C-alpha cells in the first residue's frame, strides 16, 4: 500500500474542521493524524484478514486451491447453519426495531428525569456480561424458573412452558443483549430532530399519527437503519447466547467455526467459513448501501 497516497487524500478533513489561520505545523500534516489509525487497522485487522484469506485458499503443498470452497459448497449441514444464523439475526433485528423504536421515542420526548431513568435501565444491563445475562434468563424462564413456577402454581398452565433451549429462548436472549444497539442510534437522531417540524405539521392540520408518519419517521429513518445494521451484524456473529439458551435447531455458524478451529484444528476450513460469513454480511451491507445509500447506513445523524 502506498502510504503517500493516504497522507495526501483526506485534506478535506482538516480544511473543513479547522478555522483558517489556526494551523500549527503538525496540523498541516493531517496524514500524521490518521497514520496511527491506518497502522493500527493495517496491523491488527487488514494483515490478519489477509493471512486468513491465505489459509482458506492455500493447498497443503503451497499452491492455490478451491478445495475448501468446494467442501463448503457440498456440505448441506453448513448451509443449514448459515440459514439458521441469518434467520435468527433477521428476527432479532426486526424485534429489536419494534421494541427499540417506541422506547427511543419515549426517551426522546419524555422529561429529563424520566429519560435518565430509562437510560440507566438500558445501560446497566448493557454493562453486565453477556454470560451473566444469558444465565439470568435460565433462572427466569427455565422449567423450574420463576415464571414457570408462578404459571403452574397459579393454575394458568398445567405443565411448564418450553420457553428455553429452543428458538424462542435464543430470540429472547439476543433481543435483550442487542436492544441498546438499536435504541441508542434512534434516540440520538430523535434528540436532534427539530421539534418545530412535527409542530408545524400539527398546526397545518395533521393528526398526531399523520405528523409522526410523514415527518418524524422519515427524519429518524437514518437512526433506525443504523440500529438495524448494528444489531444485524452483531447478531450474525453471536455465539454464547444461542449456545446457552438454544436447542439443537439453533446451532449458528459461529458455533461451527469454533468447533472446526478449536477442536478439529482445521484452520483452512475454519478460515473459509469465516470468510464466507464475512462475504455474506458484506453482501447484505452492500445491497443495503446500493438502495439506501452508504452514508445513511453508517451515519446515525439525522438530516433535515
Amino acid at each position, binding site marked *: 500500500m502506498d502510504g503517500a497516497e493516504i497522507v495526501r487524500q483526506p485534506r478535506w478533513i482538516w480544511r473543513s474542521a479547522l478555522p483558517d489561520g489556526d494551523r500549527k505545523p503538525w496540523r498541516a500534516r493531517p496524514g500524521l493524524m490518521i497514520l496511527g489509525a491506518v497502522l493500527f487497522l493495517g496491523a491488527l485487522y487488514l494483515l490478519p484478514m489477509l493471512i486468513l484469506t491465505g489459509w482458506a485458499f492455500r493447498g497443503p503443498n503451497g499452491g492455490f486451491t478451491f478445495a475448501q470452497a468446494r467442501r463448503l459448497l457440498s456440505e448441506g449441514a453448513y448451509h443449514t447453519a448459515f440459514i439458521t444464523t441469518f434467520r435468527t439475526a433477521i428476527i432479532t433485528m426486526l424485534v429489536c426495531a419494534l421494541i427499540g423504536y417506541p422506547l427511543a421515542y419515549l426517551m426522546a420526548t419524555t422529561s429529563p428525569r424520566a429519560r435518565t431513568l430509562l437510560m440507566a435501565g438500558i445501560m446497566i444491563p448493557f454493562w453486565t456480561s453477556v454470560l451473566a445475562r444469558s444465565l439470568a434468563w435460565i433462572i427466569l424462564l427455565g*422449567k423450574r424458573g420463576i415464571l414457570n413456577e408462578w404459571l403452574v402454581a397459579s393454575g394458568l398452565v398445567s405443565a411448564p412452558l418450553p420457553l428455553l433451549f429452543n428458538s424462542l429462548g435464543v430470540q429472547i436472549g439476543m433481543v435483550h443483549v442487542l436492544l441498546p444497539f438499536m435504541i441508542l442510534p434512534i434516540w440520538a437522531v430523535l434528540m436532534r430532530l427539530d421539534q418545530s417540524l412535527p409542530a408545524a405539521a400539527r398546526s397545518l392540520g395533521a393528526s398526531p399519527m399523520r405528523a409522526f408518519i410523514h415527518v418524524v419517521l422519515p427524519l429518524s429513518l437514518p437512526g433506525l437503519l443504523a440500529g438495524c445494521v448494528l444489531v444485524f451484524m452483531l447478531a450474525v456473529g453471536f455465539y454464547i447466547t444461542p449456545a446457552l439458551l438454544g436447542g439443537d435447531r439453533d446451532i449458528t455458524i459461529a458455533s461451527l467455526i469454533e468447533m472446526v478451529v478449536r477442536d478439529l*484444528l482445521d484452520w483452512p476450513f475454519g478460515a473459509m467459513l469465516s470468510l464466507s460469513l464475512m462475504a455474506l454480511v458484506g453482501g447484505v451491507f452492500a445491497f443495503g448501501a446500493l438502495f439506501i445509500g452508504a452514508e445513511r447506513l453508517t451515519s446515525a445523524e439525522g438530516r433535515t
Partner: protein
Amino acid sequence: MSKQLISRRKVLRGGAASSLAAPFLHTNKARADKGEIVVASWGGSRTSAMREVMFKPFEAATGIRVRDDGPPEAAKVKAQADSGNITWDVLDTDIPAILTMAKNNLLLPIDYAKLDPGKLDKIPKVLHHEYGLGHLIYGFNIVYNTKTFPTGRHPQSWADVWNGDKYKGGRSFPFRGGISPQLEVALIADGVPIDKVYPLDIERAWRAMDRLRPLVSKWYANHAEAIQLLSKGEVDVCCTVGPRGIVAKREGAPVDVEYAGGKLAPDNWALVRGGKNLDAVYQFLNFVIDGKVQAEFAKRVPYGPSSSDAFNHLTEIEAKDLITSPDNLTKQFWNDIAWWGAVGPDGKTNIEAQTERYAKWMVQRS
C-alpha cells in the same frame, strides 16, 4: 515479540545490564540456577489443589519453580508452536486433545525409561500412552437429580437413560466444547456389553443416537453447564463427568452418580515439543505420579487417582465415591484411545471424523 526477547537476552549476556534491566536479570538468574517449568492446566480448584499437593512440595524438594498457565487447549499449543514462542512445558489434558496435538507434531513422546518403574507399575498399562501418561481419571457417567430420581429408583444403566417411558424427565448430553459424541454409551444402551464395545459399530451407535435425540432437552456445551442445569432441576439426568457430579454432591446439590457403564478416560501429563527444560520435566513427572501425592489430590478434588497405590492412602469413606475405587472400576470400561486415534482412508482420525459427523448430525433436521 520473540525478536525483542532475544535482543534483550543478548544485551544481558553482553553484560550491559543497566539498572533498567535489573528486574529481568534477576529472573534470568533464577531460571539459570534452578530452572522453571510451566504446567498448563484448567485453573480453578484443580490448579489450586495441584499447587498445594504437587507444585509447592516439588519446588521445596527440587528448587525447580513451577508456574501454572492454561487452559491447555490444542489451538493454543499450535499457536505457540507456529509463532516459535513455546512457553509451556507440561500439559494436563485429555486424550482427544493429545491425539489432535500429536497428529500436528506438537508433542514429545514420553520416554518411559526416565520414569520410576515402581510408581509406573501401579498405573494401569492402558494409561501409558505414547504421548500422555494418565494421572487423573474422569469418566462419562450417568449423573442424575436426586429429587426427580431418588437413589435406588434412578436410571441404573444407559438403557434406562434411553428409556423415556419408564424414566420421565429431560436428558442432557454433551455437544461442542471439544467433547466427542458418546457413541460407546449409545451402543451399551442398545445392548452391547461393556467389554465388547470396541471396535465401535458406528452406524448402530448413530441409530441409537437418533432414538436418544427426542429425549434430550439440552445439548450442553461444557460440563459445568451440565451440572448447573442438573442441580437446578432444568434437566433430570445427564451424560457428563461423574467426578463433577461428586463435587456438586459434596457441595450439597441434589445430584448423584451411577457408575454402571461409565466410560473411563484419563487426563494426562503430556510434554510440549520444544519445551526447554526436559530434565526438570521428568523430575516433575516422577514426583507427581506418586500414589501418595495422587491420594492427597483426590482428597481435595474428587477425581480418580490413576495409581492403585493411592487407595492405600485413602480411607474407605474417602474412596467410596471416587471413580477409580476398586468397586467402581469394575463397572466401567476404558475409553479406547487406539480406536479413536486410528486414521481412516480419508486421512482423518476417528475422533475427527465422528466429531464432524456429530456437528452435521446435530445441524441437519432429523
